[in-house]
């Protein structure tokens, strides 16, 4: 096949129009201009084709050449992804820095996976074996934390004709040769997959295990399941990035793929400073060894921002197929949607809502749909998951806008961040009245089995208490708190304790960065049991003021940070209960262990 070369006819920002390649395909990768800038064909018509160029286009001129490659935009998959930082089209940023210095220059061509590095490959198949898509052919210790399982690509099968002996190979050297219908297919450790197509799997599995992130308000009240999808919308400065960073650092995920799309460079710098320093609690290894960062910051080309989401999720699926639980984080999907909008605008597509093209909801759906828990293709049997978490940055913090609205249709969990809470420095600023989790009922079973059978009651009661308290607060702000009846003041007191002692979790350092499920349970149990007993006392004519004076109230708000962890909570629990018994004794009443009623305002 001769070279398929055309030429530029028009340049409009990141979109370039060209002609002269008859058989150009939609999605085909092309090199644009004398410098060979990377681009992808996004529209084909009879007389021209349009290219989304992934690098800055200034200086390009009409009539410069466009070379078609015949390939789709792919991710390079294989050992050498973990611990590294790529831009939106998978160019390794460290390598670019080594080549051209601290500023990203265009036209730099570097392979995604290192070509000269040798990996120690241990084959797991032998000659004569019949292999199908997804079968593991060997393993490589990619980092001390993660064993990389080299698989037959999803579209290939055959009989093993040759196997390389255990040893060190580059990603391009064949390690297995398959024979299929008389042709030889060499397999190496590197494979490619078109980023805009989901990788196939055998079957979908239910998402019924929580992804524990260690933030109480999320795990207890608004959990996300492994393989589920969650969105975290909020105005600027409400804590989306901090929350997602903490999840990428502390959550019990095996692999984390973090896509910084259209956000700040300094935030990436912060992660790259922290990840190598933070140790995985189980293995003691730095968590950078299980992480992959895609950084296409807000000042990098908009079209590469559009691609970054697909690049990230393809890499996540690849590790899922190896049998890992992967958490994929995208900060912020709104900036990605804006990139979609900008390219659509340059192509002259009809805007429907706030300038977004009509296919925006489909694109959002496709993205979140690529999450899930699955049984992977091939042998040995493997189960893996991709949990998708996306930040959403609604204009003016108002959720009534296309990206938020459509995102909420396709996710199971929403952590609604609230500007008022953030102003009060109540972090995580998750609004407990607006947030939801459709996984709560399912993963409750996990809590019942693994933590405590009565967890669901406590959870529900706490939510109810918070809801009622917010109604009472509205009244208190008009009449003053002291004008309220005692039972309502008790609700306010209990909700204060829950907000300060349970929901609020500063999460920057110390004991409280990750709260274990047992401790979450015991904290909540302490607070609700306190409420129930105090309620009984009030009904038996003890004044709320007397209860409010207990020094243990302040302790309940602080014990989450006690370095002794769960032990400190249990010890405090004992003391709180004893105090209430003392009060009861003093007033000559007996406490039955009845549940307190939460009366509405």
């Amino acid at each position, binding site marked *: 096949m001769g070279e398929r070369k055309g030429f530029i*006819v*028009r*340049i*409009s*920002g990141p979109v370039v129009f060209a002609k002269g390649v008859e058989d150009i395909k939609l999605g085909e990768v092309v090199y644009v201009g004398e410098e060979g800038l990377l681009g992808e064909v996004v529209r084909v018509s009879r007389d021209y084709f349009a290219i989304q160029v992934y690098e800055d*286009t*200034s*200086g*390009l*001129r*009409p*009539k410069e050449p466009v070379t078609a490659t015949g390939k789709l935009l792919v991710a390079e998959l294989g050992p050498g992804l973990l611990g590294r*930082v790529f831009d939106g089209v998978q160019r390794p*940023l*460290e390598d*670019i*820095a080594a080549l051209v*210095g*601290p*500023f*990203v*220059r265009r036209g730099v061509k570097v392979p995604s996976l290192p070509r000269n590095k040798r990996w120690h490959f241990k084959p797991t198949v032998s000659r004569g074996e019949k292999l199908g898509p997804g079968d593991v052919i060997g393993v490589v210790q990619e980092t001390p934390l993660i064993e990389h399982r080299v698989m037959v690509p999803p579209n290939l099968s055959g009989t093993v004709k040759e196997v390389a002996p255990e040893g060190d190979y580059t990603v391009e050297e064949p390690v297995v040769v398959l024979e299929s219908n008389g042709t030889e297919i060499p397999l190496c450790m590197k494979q490619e997959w078109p980023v805009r197509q989901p990788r196939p799997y055998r079957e979908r599995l239910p998402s019924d295990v929580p992804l524990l992130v260690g933030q109480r308000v999320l795990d207890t009240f608004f959990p996300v399941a492994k393989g589920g999808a969650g969105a975290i919308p909020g*105005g*600027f*400065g409400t804590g989306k990035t901090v929350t997602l960073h903490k999840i990428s650092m502390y959550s019990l995920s095996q692999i984390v793929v973090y896509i*910084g799309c*259209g956000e700040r*460079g*300094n935030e*990436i*710098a912060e992660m*790259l400073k922290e990840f190598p320093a933070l140790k995985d609690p189980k293995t003691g290894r730095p968590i950078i060894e299980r992480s992959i960062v895609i*950084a296409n*910051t*807000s*000042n*990098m080309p*908009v079209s590469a921002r559009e691609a970054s989401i697909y690049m990230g999720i393809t890499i996540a699926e690849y590790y899922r197929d190896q049998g890992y639980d992967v958490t994929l984080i995208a900060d912020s999907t709104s*900036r990605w949607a*804006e*990139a979609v909008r*900008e390219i659509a*605008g340059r192509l002259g597509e009809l805007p429907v809502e*706030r*300038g977004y093209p009509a296919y925006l909801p489909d694109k959002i759906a496709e993205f979140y749909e690529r999450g899930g828990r699955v049984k992977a293709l091939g042998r040995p049997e493997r189960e893996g998951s991709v949990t998708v978490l996306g930040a959403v*940055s609604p*204009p*003016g*913090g*108002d959720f009534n806008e296309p990206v938020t609205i459509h995102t909420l249709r396709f996710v199971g969990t929403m952590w609604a961040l609230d500007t008022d809470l953030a*102003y*009060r*420095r109540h972090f995580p600023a998750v609004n407990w009245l607006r947030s939801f989790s459709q996984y709560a009922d399912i993963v409750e079973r996990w809590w019942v089995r693994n933590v405590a059978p009565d967890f669901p009651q406590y959870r529900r009661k706490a939510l109810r208490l918070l809801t009622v308290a917010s109604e009472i607060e509205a009244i208190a*702000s*008009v009449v*003053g*708190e*002291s004008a309220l009846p005692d039972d309502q003041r008790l609700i306010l007191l209990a909700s204060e304790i829950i907000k300060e002692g349970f929901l609020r979790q500063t999460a920057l350092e110390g004991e409280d960065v990750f709260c274990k499920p047992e401790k979450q349970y015991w904290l909540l149990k302490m607070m609700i049991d306190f409420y129930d007993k105090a309620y009984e006392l009030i009904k038996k004519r003890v004044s709320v003021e007397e209860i409010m004076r207990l020094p243990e109230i*302040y302790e309940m708000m*602080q014990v989450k940070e006690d370095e002794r962890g769960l032990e400190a909570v249990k010890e405090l629990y004992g003391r709180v209960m004893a105090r209430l018994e003392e009060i009861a004794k003093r007033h000559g009443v007996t406490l039955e262990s009845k549940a307190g009623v939460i009366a509405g305002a």
Partner: protein
Amino acid sequence: MPDELLQYVVPKVGGKIYRGVREIRGSLLILDGVEEAAYDEVALIFGKDGRERVGRVLDTSIGTAIVQVLGDREGLETDTLVKLTGTTFKIRLSEDVLGRVFNGRFEPVDGLPPVLSGEMREITGAPINPVMREYPHDFVQTGISVIDGLFSLVRGQKLPIFSVSGLPHNMVAAQVARQATVRGEGEQFAVVFAGIGLRKTEAEFFLEQFRETGAIERMTAVINLADDPAVERLMTPRIALTVAEYLAFDLGMHVLVIMTDMTNYCEALREVSSARGEIPGRLGYPGYLYSDLATIYERAGVIKGRKGSITLFPILTMPGGDLRHPIPDLTGYITEGQIFLSQELYSQGIYPPVNILPSLSRLMKAGIGPGKTREDHRYLADQLYDAYSRGVKARDLARVIGEIGLSERMRRYLRFAEEFESKFVNQGFYENRSIEETLDRGWEVLSILPEEELVRIPRRIIEKYHPKYRS
């Protein structure tokens, strides 16, 4: 005149000259019969009125180019000569830019000759590779208590002031420029000032401030006045930042960039976008306003292995005082915090009138603490913020139910808020407080509250810094 201009705006003048413009639409010229104009290329436009202007190619195809005219477009006719220069917009840089004042086309307006030697740099800049960024962590002492104490600025940060017209944001910026130092280093900031759509008196105010303190020697100003062409406002901050990058990353200086008023920049962007017939986003601002602003603000930072830094202190006035307006909203989504000014405090005579509750410095945590400022800083700041927010709440409640309706505790917080505003926030325009003084003042106002209320501060810190234990 043309020859002189060519010398410093354009390095090598090549390419062809075209005669005749098909259409003039606002600041846009539509040229036919153009062979191959480069995207973003600089064009020179020679009008029949004998004046000559600079333009940029915004859209190019075989046969047609759209050129945006910078500078005055009045008096242009379709019979005009247009020369494509073969290069994108670049400026010449050397140490000689210090002490100089330029306009939005980088022409000197201080009566001195243009910068003649040095390297040409593209004003759009290139993105800093995220892996090469050093996470900012050096505390900058501005000498303003409310900033240093509660919303500390660090080197390499972008921290805007959100204001409304009529408030003293320019004074705050000038005071920061005058007083900013990094402790223990003795070295001072170079200042790059970008005036965007400024009134003459405002521009004069800044220049006067710089002259007064001798800062003019280590300062470069790029000033686009209110009656200068609006489209040049799009170049002004980029020229300023290109100068800043040169000073910071080539010469190793710590550069503070003050840009005011970014709202004028956004208005100009809207104007150009609508002239091009682009699909408008919210309130007519283009959908790419976020990305466009990011290419400006993200030029702040510290680079691994380089000595200098760029710290950005932009000012914007919120149209209608509305925080949800796209300009402050999108800015807040890009910058690393924001400092709000408040009409209410200002009318009570408080300077700087910083609205505490919505203000934030996101990079503060890395810049403060033992060895940087003082060990009590973080706790004290948290406690002050928390106590003040209670005080404000008490004040709101008192407005509804009267002060006597407040509990004893609430009344105490109310008093705290008042003292905090008058003793801690309030300070003179020429008053330069060290961080120790700022923190000590914080403790002083905090001592109005009973010790049990100081729950955000560890015991050991209270015993070391609380006035009660110190005297």
